């Protein structure tokens, strides 16, 4: 893009082009396989059977930062790790997005006071697009964070000049649920297993699932 980046007249055509590019970027957020601590397990759960982040196009976990769009920093970052996180961020190609997942990356979390080694919030050295609170956040919260990011991307200007519009966050809940069921009389709903169908009729689990 280079030369044209936010340099074309703000007309209907460029806006349309912006829309198309943003749609591509928002619908295809490839996260980097980069789990640090407890949150990484919930990050894996998001990609796994029940929650399946692939539905939103954000499930293609890439092992190398060169091919990733979204760095989910999932877990406590300490003094030894911070340089690695910074380097990984630098290795990603533009446009890149960062999700600070969990209390530790948001602000030090439980290690805020006595953690002599822990960085109190990764926004001290990398720019963060979405903060997802929780210790660790539930998978629903991560999906919420991804959708939040998608709306943020959709509101960006790519080619056209002008002021960026405010993201439309209607329909996004403000506080992703970080607390589970506290009332013991409420029974959590069982996961509904979808039996493999059309394409997967020969899959190993067959109709048993």
């Amino acid at each position, binding site marked *: 893009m280079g030369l044209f980046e936010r340099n074309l007249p703000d007309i209907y055509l460029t806006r349309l082009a912006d829309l198309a590019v943003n749609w591509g970027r928002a619908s295809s957020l490839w996260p980097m396989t980069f789990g640090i601590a407890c949150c990484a397990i919930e990050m894996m759960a998001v990609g796994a059977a029940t929650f399946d982040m692939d539905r939103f196009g954000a499930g293609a976990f890439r092992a190398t930062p060169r091919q990733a769009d979204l760095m989910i920093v999932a877990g406590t970052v300490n*003094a*030894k790790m*911070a*340089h690695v996180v910074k380097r990984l961020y630098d290795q990603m190609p533009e446009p890149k997005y960062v999700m600070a997942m969990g209390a530790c990356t948001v602000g*030090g979390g439980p290690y*805020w*006071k006595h953690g*002599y*080694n*822990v*960085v*109190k*919030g990764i926004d*001290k*050295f990398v720019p963060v697009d979405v903060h997802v609170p929780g210790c660790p956040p539930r998978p629903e919260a991560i999906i919420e964070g991804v959708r939040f990011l998608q709306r943020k991307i959709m509101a960006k200007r790519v080619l056209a000049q002008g002021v960026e519009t405010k993201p439309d966050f209607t329909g996004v809940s403000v506080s992703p649920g970080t607390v589970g069921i506290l009332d013991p009389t409420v029974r959590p709903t069982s996961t509904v297993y979808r039996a493999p169908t059309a394409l997967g009729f020969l899959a190993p689990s067959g109709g048993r699932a």
Partner: protein
Amino acid sequence: MTAAEALEQLKKAGLGDGVELFAGPKDAALLVTRERVKQLLRHLRDSRPFSCDLLLMITGTHMTEKRAPDKTTPDGVDVNGGVVKGTTVKGALLREAGFEVIWHLRSVAKHHLLAVKCRLPLADPRVDSVADLWPAADWHERETWDLLGITFTGHPNLRRILLPESWVGHPLRKDYVAPKEFEGINLEVDAPWPTP
């Protein structure tokens, strides 16, 4: 096998000098002088009645000086009506400052747990390494050096293990002050959390 039984066995084997019983309220341990540590551990590993083949962990503790509360006599009034300052008597020394190193051994064959303890002076925390007896001791000794600064002489590779190489200080010492910054990474808290 309890620590008391172990001590009796040791005495029978002629290895009892320099070893005493550290009778804590819950767990007892063998308390040895630091010159005898390696010899004793080797014996516990090799001799048949002990056969403590599994080294569970090595760790240390920084023991600060502990005294009984100071006694201060209240201010008095002397015969002339003047004020007499009360005197403060320092409390009795309950515990000397220093380091304690403890080795936990388990016997897979005989199903018992033994602990060996050693006290080291604050100024010269130095004890023999057992990395050549148990390969498992390698990392434990490195960690104890890293976090407490206790030197294990004879260790092949005594470097920091958990903290970065260039870290300053040993965090588990009681007088440790956390750094504000490390190699350009800010470790401070910007704004304190509101207290309820």
